[in-house]
């Protein structure tokens, strides 16, 4: 009898371990969460990563600087251009070349458009995670318009590889400005629909308010940056604290909340979309004339030393660290990616909530899995 009891666990409080494994609709990719449950209550969430670890940092050590640009946007493919910009700014800072004004403005517009389409996809998949299929169709329908703008200027829809060390790959398309203005006008007229569908929905609020609270001290100790950190009051917007490209000449306010629960992590992203549109509005009118790139030597060699550049990606603070020993490929290239650090807090804030809340919390932290594994 005890043989039966042993393996069926009848009697003692057996821990029930479930794999929210590599292939799961709500883990946004190949993140495996080993969840140990007591009935519906989550006792411990252990993330297992590495199912899409491609060894990008090791590859960078055998590629030249212009080649690495194409790898950067395969890391966090939803903020592709922001990754490019981080790496290129770092290389330009090391070479101490000052890039033309036109490049700064166009890079800022492209970064803000990238942030917009990233938050749109967050909104689409977050609604789908919590059971609302309509968000998937509304969100991706509007995202398609940004992808068309990207394709016209850079040739690629999502992984644009648009910035290169020294400026931009090509100049912007003649009707880039017209189409961006049209899109901003269209998206402003339709954004109230996003709030009506999800933000105002009672079921959505019931499932996200007071769930997965993260205090300010914990947010700093866990290093949670980006919208997830700003929802807990951690003012970490790199565009405000250390403006790069053309962020110093635009007026926008940093979205900050203090409640720190899942609903406010979602709300910060919705308001950030409005801020991004304000930034684009202030810049799209008068893009300064001038060259779109600086003439660079064919083989780029950075002087010896360690270079650090931080940038605000759609998910948080993205740092590009390059250690160079003077020849054409870097001695060590490291990317501090936001999703990787934000993953550490998942176990801490999900304890005690139900397994359905785990889906909501993981969705609100907005992971991109190759951003975690690199």
């Amino acid at each position, binding site marked *: 009898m005890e043989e039966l009891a042993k393996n069926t666990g009848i009697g003692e409080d057996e821990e029930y371990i479930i794999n929210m494994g590599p292939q799961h609709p709500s883990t946004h990719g190949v993140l495996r969460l080993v969840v140990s449950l007591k009935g519906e209550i989550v006792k411990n969430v252990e993330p297992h990563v590495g199912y899409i670890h491609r*060894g990008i940092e090791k*590859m960078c050590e055998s590629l030249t600087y212009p080649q690495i640009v194409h790898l950067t946007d*395969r890391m966090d493919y*939803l903020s592709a251009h922001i990754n490019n910009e981080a790496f290129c700014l770092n290389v330009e800072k090391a070479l101490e070349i000052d890039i033309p004004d036109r490049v700064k403005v166009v890079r800022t517009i492209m970064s803000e458009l990238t942030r917009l389409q990233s938050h749109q996809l967050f909104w689409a998949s977050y609604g789908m995670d919590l059971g609302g299929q309509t968000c*998937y169709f509304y969100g991706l329908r509007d995202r398609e318009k940004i992808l068309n703008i990207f394709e016209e200027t850079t040739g690629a*829809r999502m*992984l644009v590889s648009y910035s290169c060390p020294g400026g931009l790959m090509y100049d912007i398309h003649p009707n880039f400005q017209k189409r961006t203005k049209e899109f901003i006008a269209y998206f402003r007229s339709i954004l109230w629909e996003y709030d009506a569908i999800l933000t105002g929905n009672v079921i959505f609020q019931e499932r996200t308010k007071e769930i997965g609270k993260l205090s300010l001290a914990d947010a700093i100790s866990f290093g949670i940056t980006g919208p997830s950190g700003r929802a807990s009051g951690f003012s970490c917007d790199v565009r405000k604290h250390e403006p790069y490209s053309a962020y110093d000449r635009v007026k926008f306010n940093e979205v900050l909340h203090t409640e720190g629960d899942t609903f406010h992590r979602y709300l910060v992203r919705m308001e950030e979309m409005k801020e991004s549109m304000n930034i684009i509005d202030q810049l799209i009118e008068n893009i300064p004339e001038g060259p779109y790139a600086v003439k660079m030597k064919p083989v780029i060699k950075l002087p010896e030393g360690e270079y650090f550049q931080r940038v605000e990606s759609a998910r948080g603070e993205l740092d590009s660290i390059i250690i160079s020993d003077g020849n054409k490929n870097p001695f060590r290239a490291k990317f501090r990616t936001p999703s990787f650090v934000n993953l550490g807090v998942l176990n801490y804030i999900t304890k005690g909530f139900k397994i359905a809340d785990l889906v909501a919390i993981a969705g609100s932290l907005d992971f991109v899995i190759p951003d975690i594994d690199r």
Partner: protein
Amino acid sequence: MGIKGMKYEDFKDNESLELLKESGTNILLATIDDVINWGRKASLWPLTFATSCCGIEMMQTGAPYHDFARFGMEVYRASPRQADVIVVAGTIVYKMAPVLKRLYDQMSEPKYVVAMGACAISGGPFFLNSYSVVKGVEHVIPVDVFIPGCPPRPEALLYGMLQLQRKIETETMRSRKKRSASHNSEIV
């Protein structure tokens, strides 16, 4: 501008199609085959399996602008038990290969595989100097259709799925049984 459109006539019948079709089935079986194939090809349910950027393009193909549903593929099944097609969208690394093999084995027959994107075909941008990328999904599971691109445009994915549908059109009951038997492996 863009890919020259293909006229419908030469889309429908080209020589390679005939080679796939085994000859010698009698009239009665052929008509039943046609009905079965028409039913199967028009409702290919893909498994939600996306490892990296190609997965986002697959989602974008499911969205209203490019709309998978026109070809009967909009139902994404989360479990392999109910899926017909496994669209390998993204890079497969050595740690993910046994998972992919397990998912493929757990799918019910008849099952098809579409390798979407350069990473699934040959490791793509990670072919050189990467220590953990499987250089192509062909090493793990048999693949029916390859769709090049990094990531392929939604139209390319749709064209790839249409090619898969044409491949299904040529199947007969005997060829389908032979093909499923090839997936057997002895119960260990």
